[in-house]
């Protein structure tokens, strides 16, 4: 068993599952947005606002945002632990990787909070 403190869930299986399920949610959301453009080819700002004002759409948007954040973290964590290791950077690798992970987490947290405000704010 290889342990790791910074992976999304500590479990490889859970990370793997979350990565796949979040991809499905994001795919469905993308189709939903694209579909609404197809149904209303000449959508104006008022219709656009009304679309995102519906509770169902707010829930779906927020769910997709959460899926995006989880998906992004698992992906960025994987990339970081592949390429930012002692094989490439020797002794300094831990600091480089930790800094990279901190920046990623921070950005994702900001986007999440910001996104909640946009989708569910007044």
């Amino acid at each position, binding site marked *: *068993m290889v342990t790791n403190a910074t992976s999304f869930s*500590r479990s490889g*299986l*859970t*990370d*793997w*599952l979350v990565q796949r399920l979040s991809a499905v949610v994001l795919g469905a959301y993308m189709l939903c947005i694209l579909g609404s453009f197809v149904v209303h080819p000449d959508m104006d700002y008022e219709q656009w606002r009304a679309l995102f004002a519906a509770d169902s759409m707010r829930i779906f948007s927020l769910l997709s945002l959460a899926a995006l954040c989880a998906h992004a973290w698992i992906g960025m964590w994987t990339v970081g632990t592949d390429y930012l290791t002692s094989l490439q950077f020797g002794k300094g690798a831990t600091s480089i990787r930790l800094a990279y992970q901190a920046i990623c987490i921070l950005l994702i947290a900001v986007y999440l909070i910001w996104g909640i405000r946009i989708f569910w704010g007044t």
Partner: protein
Amino acid sequence: MLVSIYRYNPETDAKPSMQEIEVEIPADKDLMVLDVLELAKQKDPTISYRRSCREGVCGSDGMNMNGTNGLACITPVSEAAGPGKKLVLRPLPGLPVVRDLVVDMSVFYKQYEKIKPFLINDNPAPAIERLQSPEDREKLDGLYECILCACCSTNCPSYWWNPEKFIGPAGLLQAYRFLADSRDTATAERLAELDDPFSVFRCRGIMNCVAVCPKGLNPTRAIGHIRSMLLAQGT
């Protein structure tokens, strides 16, 4: 025929170099790469490589031939280099070089050791032997044949990046060999050892391992089976 061979002695050389040697090959024959290497060694006896069985059984002469991993003893020159082309021989990628084409396989064996490559069964041993039905025995086909040549693991990018943490295709093929064995009773413990973000889940399914296995085995499929077993147990 022109042969280009990777030369490196970490104790004396600052960095690796490629040595070009002209080898005379009988016109009507398609030699194996290992035969060409033997001819080259007659010209320069300092060239180092491993080999033993010279028939694809022992797994000791895994090397990189014109960019592709394989066993030198069963790879025809025509296949490795193509007609009239230069034969380029390098050690298996990703492992530390001991000398020329000889690599240090310690980390590869460490991963193999991790998966406990032996039958675990706490039930009292029967008088004669632990029997297996022909159907259960069949499940081990395509798994037990592995000769641990390391051609697959050293062709796997995930293994290059995390050789200490990702078990790699060879080790995982063997992990599944024991998970699939009806006589083994440690399935749950074995799976628990594999459910971390590195051991199994570093596999990205690009099948580089399958492409080079000289025994025609399919580690990616075995990894898929392990994932399904983890899923069945973990959900």
